């Protein structure tokens, strides 16, 4: 059964150990609602490795395979291959669920390999924009301007000045059948994309915006609003890459980045000039995305 298009069935039960307001919980919740019972999920070292509970308990209603930090995609490959040879793949969704560090940094090689090999797996990166499990260190997906424990604000600056890697473009360059960004602040869009992902025969990459009140330093109840701002400012655009074509799912870029930045402690130290620089960058990236959509659909 679905309520307003959202399946009512839950696969995450009470008893998890995430911080209040953790975005990864929402991401996994929506994900599993759509994928359903016949799903095997594998999880590397990350916040989510600790969230479902300690052995032998689990708060997830599906089988979980834990694995080493950089192995998510390789593990998913092994799961898929074994299910195939055992004749069980038809009805089971194989999911890799990893953080931004496990995806864009240490695990990117395995991810590239698995996509290139064409495994029928759904890889979900929940992007909380830093290594949160180890206490908020910079990852290659930490946004411009953020301070982290390895980009601490000091007398000479120190915060992050580089921009995020574009993971969708990276996986798109592998000619992946389907990739998309999702944001739990836009649940209907999220659900639709996972429904699509479920039907794809081959690798799928989902890049999920995942708020983190603890690491980003804001009050937990602001999570959904911050999520909406991320998309409305164009910092986290919602789009798909399907059959070689980019398609933007939400085209209203109506807000300025300052509105997003001012709500979070990790950007508190920034000058107006720096934020303007970020704004220029975002505008440019947005234009690029529009062009990608236009060109790839020609």
């Amino acid at each position: 059964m679905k309520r307003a298009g959202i399946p009512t069935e839950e696969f995450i039960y009470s008893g998890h150990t995430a911080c209040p307001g953790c975005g990864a919980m929402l991401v996994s919740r929506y994900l599993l609602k759509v994928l359903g019972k016949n799903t095997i999920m594998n999880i590397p070292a990350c916040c989510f490795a600790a969230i479902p509970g300690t052995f032998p308990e689990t708060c997830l209603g599906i089988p979980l395979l834990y694995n080493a930090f950089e192995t998510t995609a390789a593990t998913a490959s092994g799961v898929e291959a074994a299910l195939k040879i055992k004749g069980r793949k038809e009805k089971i969704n194989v999911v890799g669920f990893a953080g931004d560090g496990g995806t864009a940094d240490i695990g990117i090689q395995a991810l590239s390999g698995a996509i290139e090999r064409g495994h029928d797996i759904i890889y979900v990166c929940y992007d909380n924009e830093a290594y949160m499990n180890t206490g908020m260190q910079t990852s290659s997906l930490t946004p411009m301007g953020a301070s982290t424990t390895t980009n601490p604000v000091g007398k000479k600056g120190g915060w992050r000045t580089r921009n995020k890697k574009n993971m969708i473009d990276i996986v798109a360059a592998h000619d992946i059948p389907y990739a998309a960004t999702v944001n739990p602040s836009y649940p209907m869009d999220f659900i639709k994309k996972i429904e699509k992902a479920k039907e794809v025969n081959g690798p799928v990459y989902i890049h999920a915006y995942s708020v983190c009140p603890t690491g980003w330093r804001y009050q937990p109840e602001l999570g959904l609003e911050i999520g909406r701002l991320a998309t409305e400012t164009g910092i986290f655009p919602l789009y798909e890459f399907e059959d070689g074509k980019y398609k933007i799912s939400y085209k209203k870029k109506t807000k300025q980045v300052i509105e997003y930045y001012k709500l979070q402690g990790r950007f508190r130290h920034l000058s107006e000039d720096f934020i303007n620089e970020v704004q220029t960058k975002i505008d440019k990236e947005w234009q690029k995305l529009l062009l990608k959509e236009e060109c790839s659909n020609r």
Partner: protein
Amino acid sequence: MVKKIMTGNIAAAWGARLSRTEVIAAYPITPQTIIVEKLAQFVSDGDLKAEYLHVESEHSAMAACIAASQIGARAFTATSSQGLLLMHELLHWASGARTPIVMANVNRALAPPWSVWVEHTDMISQRDTGWIQFYAESNQEVLDTILICYKLCEDKEIQLPAMVGLDAFYLSHTSEIVDIPDQELVDKFLPKYEAQYPIDTENPLSLGSLSMPHQWYPEFRYKIYEAMERVIPRLYQIEEDFYKQFGRRYTGPLELYNTEDAEVVLIISGAAAGTVKETVDILRKNGVKVGAIRLRMFRPFPKKELVKALSNVSFVGVIDRSFSFGHEGAMFSEIKASLYGTKFSPAIKNYIVGIGGRDITTDTIKKIFDNCFNCLKNNKIDAHVEWVDIKV
């Protein structure tokens, strides 16, 4: 049964094929390459029904094997040297997750300087990963040990992974006559793999999650300890079955060669054991009481069996084809430690030989035996550790 002339690499591939491995994930490295090529050929020709994953690294190869095994498939991989080292983190994972993966490792030296020739440092340095470790002497033994390993590893009381070492080039690229057992006989010896706790959506288990200090972590480790203790007794039984089925006898973790009345015994593992045995034959012809022990298994370490075999020996020379810097050869340390506290404590000396593939000849071994007898005569061990045939 068919007899064929084949290299150790081909024998390893046949071992995997006859075991009907279901998932193969492997990455090429000299001198292992031919194993993965041959397996790919078997799969392409339909002679082996398996999923073959062209992974992008050894690290991913092992990750995929672990996952496949946890789903309930029989998994195989092969590697060597740098590749084995890249797997290191996941070797611990494989044993911790109790996955009965079998792997062929072509024993090769580590860089720098680059060397593709035999040495045992790659495998010796995986000592504490919780893997069962075999070192083969012949190509036949490579093939047979892979079959034996699956039976051993998948035993409900064991559930641990195993690696079979074959010396680079001396075995990997050298042809010998090998009996290929009939598939039906192998199927009888090694039935289909049934995982004890396969990952299944009907029964959602969570494997490998966090364990707090007051919960189960030490118990998980203790269970591995217990399982390792069961390996050697079980190995003897399996080798007895193997003998009944295929007519070839293996001797458990040690092969004893003229040790019964020997005054001096050399201990070695790998293909160079053949040279030691040949030297023993030569010296025996002259009435010299020498013997040899080939260590087939390094983990679990066969301490009881060794102590028994050495109980009447006066002098033991341990030949290590690897070295633990800042200390001594690892096999030497283990053998010494095994002898500690026993009633008969022979004198013991460490010889580091054949590093980076340097040839071990009967002359080398004779020289070592001579040195042993000298030490014995003088009642003094000239050096605790000696690097033999070193040019500096």
